């Protein structure tokens, strides 16, 4: 079984979010990068579990520059067999999806995993775009995946509930919470990751379709108005007459 897992880096979940260059760039000053949690905890770990049970290989793929290598090594330390980095700036989701599709199209991966979304852009776009580019089914927001031969049974979040579906390989999924449990890399994994193959391949020449022009931070709240815990009638009155939300 051959599995490809798309890995993106994202700022640590506690990172201070600020912008520079006239609010056109994310301020990386003092920011620690991690493997995007959805890519790591759910996509990568489930891919490793499937290969441990059924045999095969897990390759990670990232569109990025050498600055992404430490997060790629982290994914290798967790247990991926090898990694691919497509050498270029990740310009937008369609650019990333096309680069990955271009790489994957003749490699016969059984499953391509993405995380549900990144915690920096929250676009949830790359998985569906890869699936369309490769003409494969896309199972979005999958919370469970088991495989028997070529047939996979999945659970996924849909409008109003959870759907149990069957699909044959090859397919693309986006992995959401529930798919697997986080794994902490051990010392042996970290040592082994240093010598695992990280293949850098050139990007295909492509244009992006979207650009982030500027960023802004939400306006600060005016301050909290404290209400006497004995007087909930006052709170209801404020919610009705002042805030007009009920």
């Amino acid at each position, binding site marked *: 079984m051959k599995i490809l897992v798309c890995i993106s880096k994202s700022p640590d979940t506690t990172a201070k979010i600020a912008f520079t260059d006239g609010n056109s760039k994310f301020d990386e000053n003092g920011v620690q990068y991690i493997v995007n949690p959805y890519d790591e905890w759910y996509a990568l770990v489930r891919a490793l579990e499937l290969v441990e049970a059924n045999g095969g290989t897990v390759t990670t793929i990232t569109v990025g520059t050498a600055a992404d290598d430490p997060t790629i090594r982290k994914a290798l330390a967790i247990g991926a067999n090898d990694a691919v980095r497509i050498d270029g700036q990740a310009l937008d989701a369609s650019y990333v999806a096309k680069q990955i599709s271009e790489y994957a199209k003749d490699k016969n991966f059984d499953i391509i995993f993405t995380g549900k979304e990144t915690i920096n852009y929250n*676009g949830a776009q790359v998985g569906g*775009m890869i699936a369309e580019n490769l003409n494969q089914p896309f*199972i*979005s927001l999958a919370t469970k995946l088991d495989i028997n031969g070529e047939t996979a049974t999945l659970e996924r979040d849909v*409008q109003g509930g959870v759907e149990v579906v069957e699909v044959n390989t090859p397919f693309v999924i986006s992995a959401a919470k529930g798919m697997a449990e986080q794994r902490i890399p051990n010392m042996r994994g970290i040592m082994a990751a240093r010598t695992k193959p990280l293949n850098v391949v050139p990007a295909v020449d492509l244009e992006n379709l979207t*650009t*982030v022009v500027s960023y*802004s931070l939400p306006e600060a709240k005016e301050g*909290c108005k404290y209400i006497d815990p004995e007087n909930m*009638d006052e709170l209801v009155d404020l919610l009705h007459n002042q805030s007009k939300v009920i």
Partner: protein
Amino acid sequence: MSVLVFIEAKNKVSKAALEAVSYGSKIGSTTVITFGDISSDELAIVGEYGGEKVLIHRGINKSNDQQLTNLIHAAVESSGATIVVLSQDQTGKSIGPRVAAKLNAGHVSGAIDLPDTSNGFQVNTNVFSGKAMATVAVHSDKKVISILPNSISPEKTGGSTTIEEFDADLGEGKIVVKEMKTQGEGIPLPEAELVVSAGRGLKGPENWGIVEDLAKTLGATTACSRPVADIGWRPHHEHVGQTGIAIRPNLYIAAGISGAIQHLAGVNGSKVIVVINTDAEAPFFKAADYGVVGDAFEVLPRLNEAFKKFHNSQN
């Protein structure tokens, strides 16, 4: 500009669908594409919100993302639309990116307001899990915009619509649905206007009755913090926060949640936040509009009674 709005409508046209229709009609001449068994009478409401024409394909399985993508593609060809609008719900996340890839269109997912066309085509969207906003310029001729539920209030235009059966070759559906487990009749969290949420301060799953009672009185949806979902007190689909669901209701009431930065990321799009906590130093109060320093076990039932009294006075 000609706009195609995709809506999913089972028995009734949802508020999220009307948001999408209203959004489309403010950009340009709007055709709506949908599928399934919904009656023409129920669909007529689309006209009141600016949908000039509805195309409906009967008999398709919604889970087949490739078929839905082909349906939208065929409707784009037939209507000549350059902009596709849909809701950023679970279905939107499944097919929006596919449609964009098929049309080679720039995709803005989770738009929170109307596009600014004064200088190209720019749309705002939430990034960093709600901690910031980005203005995204779309360069391609065709564009796919999915809108975050509860971002745009649907507005009536007083129009009406014509409904046409629409047929198209949708190809093979490769995904087979074996079972659908519904999560009850409640309003799904991303679309809820009123949300009552609780965390570890509730001390155990057996104490959630007071949260559910309040939610019932308000007609609100229940939610929870991450630790509570992780230890299994509440189902994962209730978890709001950076790695859970991001919500933007009109009113978010949080009891026994300290307000870690990851939790705030998922809820700070809420219009009004009420925080109830015994700890006056809880960081959540900094993000709150109204704060109650008190014991949730006493405050929630009292708040429930106050809402009941309010509802009675309104009737």
